[in-house]
């Protein structure tokens, strides 16, 4: 089979699939009552993921080395990463709202790579001597996967900010673990010792299409005294926690990617850190997300502020990934417009 024409078909088709998937997710968010939209969205993401994987494999076979030599290939790799991380986040949260935010990101990346990059930049190119190393695969793929995880985490933080606009919220996941305790509004007052039951409406959490929503309901068939029942996470809690977990996944990947790059640099030309703009921006990204992780455990920084930091991290990741290459300096200037 002709690998080149297969690639040309796959890149446009994955863009088309992602575009439709995005519409499906948006439709699902707008009309939660329509059945099958959620599974259709997940299926679309999975198909796009496999198509991009096939595209990259075809290039790998054709060129004979791991396909991360130019902007086009790295864009498709990151799009593959975003769809993978989307599937992870969706599996974790079981919320169809995730796709409404991640699908446009994946769609945008493939649109840029497949439609707006000129043909000569899409062609696979021989590697320059500096990149001929097994470290290339290790360093670049881990970096791109970390960008993908951080982007998904950051767009989920944006989703959280949209869902909680105008509310004050308390965060429920952090390394110190303040989120395991009952919200004071829902604390059950029980006076068992005196033999008097305070009639409190029991809390039941019913599910609707978009996620768990708190409603106050009369206790079901259970008899008095009122039972202790779990206080479930609501949609905002879920989005926040999944955003935190995705960033928590991207952060170790970023750390390992930067270290792999540093070790490679030291092995190849004797300096593990040289403040090259790309390197510096990777450090800046690391610092911003480190600040986010610490903000979550800080008193007085609770609520929406860490999410704002995470959302701004989306921009930082993009500057790190593409913006720095506009400067066109250093070893990281892979196939930009210069």
């Amino acid at each position, binding site marked *: 089979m002709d690998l080149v024409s297969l690639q040309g078909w796959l890149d446009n088709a994955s863009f088309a699939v992602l575009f439709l998937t995005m519409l499906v997710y948006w439709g699902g968010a707008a009309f939660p009552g329509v059945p099958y939209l959620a599974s259709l969205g997940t299926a679309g993401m999975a198909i796009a993921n496999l198509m991009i994987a096939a595209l990259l494999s075809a290039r790998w076979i054709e060129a004979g080395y791991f396909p991360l030599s130019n902007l086009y290939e790295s864009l498709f790799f990151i799009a593959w990463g975003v769809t993978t991380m989307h599937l992870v986040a969706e599996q974790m949260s079981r919320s169809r709202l995730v796709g409404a935010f991640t699908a446009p990101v994946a769609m945008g990346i493939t649109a840029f790579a497949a439609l707006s990059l000129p043909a000569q930049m899409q062609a696979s190119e021989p590697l320059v001597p500096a990149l001929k190393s097994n470290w290339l695969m290790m360093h670049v793929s881990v970096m791109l996967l970390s960008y993908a995880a951080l982007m998904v985490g950051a767009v989920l933080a944006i989703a959280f900010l949209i869902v909680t606009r105008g509310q004050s919220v308390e965060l429920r996941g952090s*390394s110190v673990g303040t989120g395991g305790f009952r919200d004071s509004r829902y604390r059950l007052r029980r006076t068992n010792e005196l033999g008097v039951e305070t009639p409190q409406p029991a809390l039941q959490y019913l599910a609707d299409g978009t996620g768990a929503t708190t409603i106050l309901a009369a206790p079901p068939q259970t008899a008095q005294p009122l039972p202790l029942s779990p206080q479930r996470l609501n949609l905002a809690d879920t989005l926040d*926690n999944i955003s935190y977990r995705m960033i*928590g996944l991207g*952060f170790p990947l970023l750390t390992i990617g930067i270290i792999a790059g540093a070790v490679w640099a030291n092995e190849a030309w004797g300096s*593990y850190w040289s403040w090259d703009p790309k390197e510096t921006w990777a450090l800046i990204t690391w*610092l911003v997300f*480190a*600040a986010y992780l610490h903000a979550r455990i800080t008193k007085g920084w609770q609520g929406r502020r860490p999410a704002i930091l995470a959302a701004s991290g989306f921009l930082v990741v993009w500057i790190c990934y593409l913006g720095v290459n506009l400067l066109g300096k250093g070893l990281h200037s892979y196939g930009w417009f210069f």
Partner: protein
Amino acid sequence: MTSETPTSSKPTGLHDLFQRYIQRELLPLLADLRLAIALLLAIALFSISGTVIEQGQTLAFYQANYPEHPALFGFLTWKVILWLGLDHVYRTWWFLALLILFGASLTACTFTRQFPTLKSAQTWKFYQQPRQFEKLALSTELERVSLEALEPLLHQKRYKLFREGNALYARKGIVGRIGPIIVHASMLLILAGAIWGSMTGFFAQEMVPAGQTFQIKNIFDAGPWAAAQIPKDWSVHVNRFWIDYTPEGGINQFYSDLSVLDQDGKEVDRKTIYVNEPLRYKGVTMYQADWAIAGIKVKLNNSPVIALPMGELDTGGKGRLWGTWVPTKPDLSEGVSVIAKDLQGTVLLYDNQGTLINTLREGMSAEVNGIRLTIVEIVGSTGLQIKADPGIPIVYLGFALLMVSVMMSYVSHSQIWALQAGDKLYVGGRTNRAQVAFERELLSVLDALTAEPLSMTSTKP
């Protein structure tokens, strides 16, 4: 974190006063998370300035690009840049001070926050009262269910169980509490290794023609204690330097065949280096970094081989060219210019008027002004980056620990309590990171415990 514990005895001396100051004022300030976040963001911000403003350029460059009238953003003139050191941000005293403060904050945080948190995670308690479960968000009471039924379910989910009478405590993922401590420790190791390396290491560059022997002389950056690292009792001989070209004429790889010679000129080590494959000898590493054309070997008629040095020509940034001039008359009144652009073996001959007269390959000859000029060989020189960094082992240890511990820090520390009180079983739990996954896990355990699903959003096991 502020001074809450009054000491009974008055400070007796300066030493005590100093100790009190550190414990009561300095440590809480350093361990304040808001300071840590501010430091992280400040380092990020100043790092950005270094990627926007060109680093390490000449004074004239800054004068031309950051004039006083009009000043960029109304203040950013070359004087401001030089005064603040923004032309070499990462080496200014204030940026290094920021890094040291960051290290101090890391250390303080480890002792005042992380160790106590780990300790409290390890010294758990059984819940002996039903009301203790009320503070947990994920807690419930079940009837007609026994503690014995819960144990295998938690065991299956890889919890570590502790039992005391009617009370049960289960936990997993305690590595998630240890991870951040090691993360901080490895960051400190990396910082320490970097400082040690910058004090004791050196950095040199040499451009050596093939066939010559050199000692490391051209050192352009060395730490104050670097003298012991700079080799004096051995030298390096460049046996050969060559370039592999792709069929399209692009550079595929550079190679240098190097021999390390001891004081008597005896070979003690030999290796062919290329980009990504350096030579290491006694803590000094030599990297293939650059190349140039050193000279050309020619023959005039039947003369012996004459080696002429070639100089790099100024092309105004349009590629690299080297040239030399070969006299063709004994009084040097006539000659040809020989120009080479790479080591592929082709040279161009120009006459004194600057017109191209011939193109020659290595081993070929041409008639010039009645003389037969033979190109024997184009001699390349290898550009070596030479470095010693005694801080590397410390930095690498820090890297290794950081990679492991940052992954450990992803793990969520989950704890579950249960208490059998009469015919009721109280179950509650919490986790520090993965709230959503833990909720699903605990509810699935509860669902499995009870015949009827606990809630309508029951998750399938």
